């Protein structure tokens, strides 16, 4: 309840006559800049929004903490209000809607019937025991997602929970929690993992779709390359310390004060694909884990976040900096093949030596 009021308060703060055009364009350009896109893209967004092209968005919540929605609140380029009033048509959102009960279910039904919507999934989907561990209006999460996601123009999984299972899927995964892609095997899902996902990554994807009708290039796990193409380690401001061997050994030590690398404290930066190191949170510079001195725990990456112990040293990628002496280019000599060749050579020589007896017969001898 309290959260909803907060939302409503925020919305109330928006000027009645709406935002003036210049400011709106400025906001869009700032949003573009925040995502590293050229200013012209921002202008395009504004134009598209003005033209009334507001894609329909159905936002589903399953096994989640609502952190990803919360993180969206902490944006201002565009702010959530601008987003949901001027740029998209948010047709279903359990947290933000004033409606409840049958009314909201009707809204969902109508939006699904209209089609052409973006389905955003927040939270993991339990699959054990036919998925009874998350039910809304008497339907399991699996069911809802299969219907809503199956009919969507695009499916975005926001947050690690929706992307691959996240916290609910941590061992022993009592509910059989999985990500959206597993429930929708035939539908390409754009995954935006993170705990929470950086809201600007979400905005970038949605706005690209809204204004240009296209989706960004994805890697083989369905994650946009612009956000998840590199590891934290490859973009970390503390990298020079890593390379020079300057590590924090204990929280609060001198190195910690000086901002040394947190690799020795179990930072999973080398194994974690995300852009937190360049796109910080809450629009405050350095407001991200490593920036405030906490080692990254790999929240975006399946098999790292919520899986590997916090203080266990990350595995550096195998080809990171090769050692002085390279391994044999063709691998070690296979004893089997060497044996075959050796035996064959030995047999040939032996055979020849034995043949000398027969060959030596005849002819004139002294």
């Amino acid at each position, binding site marked *: 309840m309290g959260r909803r009021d907060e939302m409503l308060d925020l919305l109330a703060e928006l000027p009645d006559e709406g935002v003036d055009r210049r400011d709106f364009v400025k906001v869009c350009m700032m949003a573009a800049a925040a995502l590293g896109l050229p200013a012209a893209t921002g202008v395009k967004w504004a134009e598209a929004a003005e033209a009334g092209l507001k894609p329909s968005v159905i936002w589903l919540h399953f096994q989640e903490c609502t952190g990803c929605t919360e993180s969206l609140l902490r944006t201002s380029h565009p702010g959530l209000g601008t987003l949901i009033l001027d740029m998209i048509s948010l047709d279903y959102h359990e947290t933000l809607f004033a409606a409840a009960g049958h009314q909201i279910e009707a809204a969902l039904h109508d939006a699904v019937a209209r089609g052409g919507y973006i389905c955003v999934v927040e939270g993991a989907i339990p699959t054990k025991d036919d998925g009874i561990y998350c039910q809304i209006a008497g339907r399991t999460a699996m069911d809802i997602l299969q219907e809503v996601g199956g009919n969507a123009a695009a499916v975005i999984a926001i947050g690690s929970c929706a992307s691959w299972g996240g916290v609910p899927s941590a061992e022993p995964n009592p509910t059989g929690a999985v990500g959206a892609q597993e429930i929708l095997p035939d539908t390409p899902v754009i995954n935006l993992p993170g705990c929470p996902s950086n809201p600007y990554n979400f905005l970038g994807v949605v706005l690209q779709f809204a204004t240009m009708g296209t989706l960004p290039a994805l890697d083989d796990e369905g994650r946009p390359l612009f956000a998840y193409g590199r590891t934290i380690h490859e973009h970390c401001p503390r990298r020079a310390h890593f*390379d020079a*061997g300057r590590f924090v050994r204990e929280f609060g030590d001198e190195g910690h004060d000086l901002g040394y690398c947190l690799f020795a404290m179990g930072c999973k930066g080398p194994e974690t694909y995300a852009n937190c190191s360049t796109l910080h949170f809450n629009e405050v510079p350095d407001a991200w884990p490593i920036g405030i001195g906490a080692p990254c725990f790999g929240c975006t990456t399946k098999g790292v976040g919520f899986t590997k112990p916090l203080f266990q040293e990350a595995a550096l990628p195998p*080809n990171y*900096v*090769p*050692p*002085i002496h*390279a391994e044999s280019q063709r691998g070690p000599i296979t004893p089997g093949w060497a044996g075959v060749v050796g035996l064959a050579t030995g047999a040939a020589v032996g055979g020849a030596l034995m043949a000398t007896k027969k060959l030596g017969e005849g002819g004139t001898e002294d």
Partner: protein
Amino acid sequence: MSMDRRTLLKGLAVAGAGAVAPVEASEQYAEAPADAVGMLYDATRCIGCQACVTACKTANNLPGNRYNPPRDLDGYTKNLIRLYEGEGDYSYMKSQCMHCVDPGCANACMIGAYKKREYGIVTWDPDRCIGCRYCQVACPYNIPKFQWDTGVPLMVKCELCNHIIHDPDTGTLREGALPGCCQACPKEAVIFGKYTDLIEDAKQRVADRPEKYWGPDGEPKIFGLTDGGGTQVLYLADMNFENLGLPTLGDEGTAKQARDIQHGIYRGFIAPVALYGVLGAVMWRNSRAQKKEEG
């Protein structure tokens, strides 16, 4: 008896002709050319960022980058950073062609594909190379690499970005042009310059901070001043160069030794021609004796 005086004279004439063949001078390989350029790599300054690896790929139009570096130089990698990790110490190491003063590869290459050209840079001529790979045997640093995976292979090694720094029309170096690696290095761990200037720079560094650099008997060593006859790429490090994969060579290159032996035997082509004359004379004499026997 037509095979007598005429044949003998013929034999001697052939022997004499060989004596005027040109004599090779080993002296031309004793020192780097006066305008030689090179690089100085100071391993103590290198942070292993591998920007030079990507820069080299870009400058030479090669596939790949530093994000997934190969484990070794190869047919598509002319420059590489590697890491030595010992007990409590470590150092990065840059590997590329050493542009030797007396290069083994240039000695080996029978058709002059690898040759020490202007400014002492050792470059490869694709129009001449037949891909025999003798250069790979001859290089003490195992630098030239071959493209094993194609029917149209190249021999690949660092050429000091000759195509960037050297203007083929004027024959001089382009003002301000640098090899890719030197351009990219954020710490100036590897720098480009006139060979004599680099030597002085290295000597100055060693004089200013002798405790920072390693040497075999306490005295800091600049690798490449005399090693294997000298190299135009110099190295400084804070540990034994052998740890970093550099061989311990004497002051004389193997090129010189092999050349001396080969020229010792074949100088002026005298020995082969003389031997030919002797062989012919012996056989002619034998045949004369046999013909006499047969009557």
